[in-house]
């Protein structure tokens, strides 16, 4: 796979103190990479830097091996879908889509074909004559997507394109974007603060925090093996317990695991809620009821699974995801033994 986009040492500082420092990343041809992080982490700054909408203080941006750092947006082979207010309300959908092609001097007949093809791709065939205000929010974003797709950009940039839509539509649009990416094979960089969106759509996720990159990895990897405490906190729900290094093992109460990272002193032990096992204390005598003592505080049923809050004697409140079958054996207020199927340890800072 060839590298389609490379960002080298991108730095941009704002007077407010926000910005990014020394961002390095590479995106392969045909990949969908997500810049994920909370607002103010600099993800949009990186995207706008790639698109040419801001002048970096330092660093270089290469697309298909050529530096575009000095080019204005209209000269870059990128195209951007913005969060909202994308379309020009005084132009019909056709004119919105044709605008860029006209500038390129494409013959009128070709424009017509290209526009209707693009509209078919975003599932809005025949919408040419409508005006943006006649379209729903989701339809407007589809048109904006079509406008960018039409130009066959070397890199398609998406700046939280679905965040203004409601939950159901957002899910639909995600699947459609995935389909379009499969069909067109376009290289895409998506900015989002929504970890579900990042996990479900990306080939790789770039997790950002305070202007730097915390981790670049595939979704499963970033979920299963978050490299830093920050990533562990940000992606998915996570329980944190205080652990102690005891020679070759890390201990939390009577539970222990090998000290793979060779940490020392006190450590933070991160456990996913789906790795938390609950056994009624009454089963203790049969020898399997090992674990930390706790008491069920609340059971929230969330459809196909339930989130159980367990008040631990010494470890605050833990969350456990349980299947709907498992939940029927549990009662609020009941004492349980908590087992932790797997964990990740971090130095305590």
């Amino acid at each position: 796979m060839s590298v389609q986009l490379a960002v080298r040492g991108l730095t941009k500082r704002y007077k407010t103190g926000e910005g990014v420092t020394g961002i390095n990343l590479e995106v392969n041809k045909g990949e969908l990479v997500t810049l994920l992080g909370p607002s103010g982490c600099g993800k949009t700054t990186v995207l706008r830097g790639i698109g040419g909408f801001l002048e970096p203080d330092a660093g270089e941006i290469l697309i298909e091996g050529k530096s575009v750092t000095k080019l204005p947006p209209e000269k870059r082979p990128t195209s951007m879908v913005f969060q909202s207010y994308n379309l020009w309300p005084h132009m019909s959908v056709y004119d919105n889509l044709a605008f860029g092609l006209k500038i390129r001097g494409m013959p009128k007949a070709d424009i017509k074909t290209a526009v209707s093809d693009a509209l078919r791709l975003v599932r809005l065939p025949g919408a040419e004559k409508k005006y943006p205000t006649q379209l729903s929010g989701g339809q407007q974003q589809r048109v904006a997507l079509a406008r960018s797709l039409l130009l066959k950009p070397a890199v398609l940039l998406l700046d939280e394109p679905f965040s203004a839509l409601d939950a159901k539509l957002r899910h639909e649009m995600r699947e459609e974007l995935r389909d379009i990416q499969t069909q067109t094979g376009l290289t895409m960089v998506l900015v989002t603060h929504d970890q579900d969106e990042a996990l479900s759509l990306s080939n790789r996720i770039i997790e950002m925090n305070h202007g730097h990159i915390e981790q670049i990895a595939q979704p499963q990897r970033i979920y299963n093996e978050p490299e830093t405490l920050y990533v562990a906190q940000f992606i998915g729900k996570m329980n944190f317990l205080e652990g102690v290094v005891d020679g070759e093992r890390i201990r939390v109460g009577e539970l222990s695991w090998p000290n793979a990272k060779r940490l020392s002193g006190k450590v933070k032990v991160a456990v996913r809620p789906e790795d938390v096992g609950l056994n009624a204390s009454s089963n203790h005598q049969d020898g399997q009821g090992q674990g930390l003592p706790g008491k069920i505080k609340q059971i929230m049923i969330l459809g196909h699974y339930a989130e159980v809050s367990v008040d631990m004697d010494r470890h605050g409140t833990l969350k456990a995801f349980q299947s709907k079958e498992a939940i029927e054996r549990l009662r609020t207020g009941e004492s349980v033994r908590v087992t932790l199927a797997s964990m990740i340890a971090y130095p305590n800072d």
Partner: protein
Amino acid sequence: MGWYFKAIGRRRIIEFILLTIFAVFFAGPLLNLVVLAFSGQWTYPDLLPHQWSFKWWRFVFEQDDVAKSIGLSFLIATIVTALSIVLCIPAAYAFARIRFPFKRVFLFSFLLTHAFPKMGLYVSIAVLFYKVGLMNTMLGVVLVHMINVLMFMTWIPTAAFRNIQAAQEESARDVGATPLRVFRSITLPMAMPGIMVASVFTFLNSLDEAQGTFLVGIPDIKTMPIIMYSIISDFPSSAGAVFSIILTAPTIILLVAAQRLISADVMASGFQVK
């Protein structure tokens, strides 16, 4: 949803009464004016005149000054509007793109131009004009008219330009348009309703301006409202009524035209203080 009107019936009635009051308050005097302008003979207690006639119309148009003053008024209004557009649109765009507490500035200048005693301003302008020899000149009158509309011509287009999202301009750059092309094809057309509303305002305001024109333009620059003053004081009220209608006609025509060209929603967006 307020507690004020519980039953829909009562609400309807109050609505009707309110609208009637407003209609009578504004349409009443105007209707009276029309009747007056076409009346031949009319004695007090009667509701309508005894005789209808065009005699006052003939009388007004036979006045030498009238035709000239109409032409002059429209000429001045056109110059004022054109100059204001040239001056204020670039300023409005600049203001729209500068970040400062827009609301505050807008409001303050709105209050200033609307609540400020114009006579104070006019007198001081007259004093200045006297020194630089602008009294009794077209240019002087045009400048006075422009001072009146400067705020409207700047702030309404500013609001219109502000309503254009950065992403809308950036999208256009993104698909390959140069900055100039963006302004011509995206920014300007999107701000056009606001600019048009402001221009209509300016034109009508200039047409109607009397105080400043009187102070700066006498004795030679006599626009329609100035002539009207003298007719009202020297001749019967019917002549005044005729002149009032002549003065009112372009307003109504322009307002109706503006309403057709620009939908109320778009116009309103020009007023939204963001």
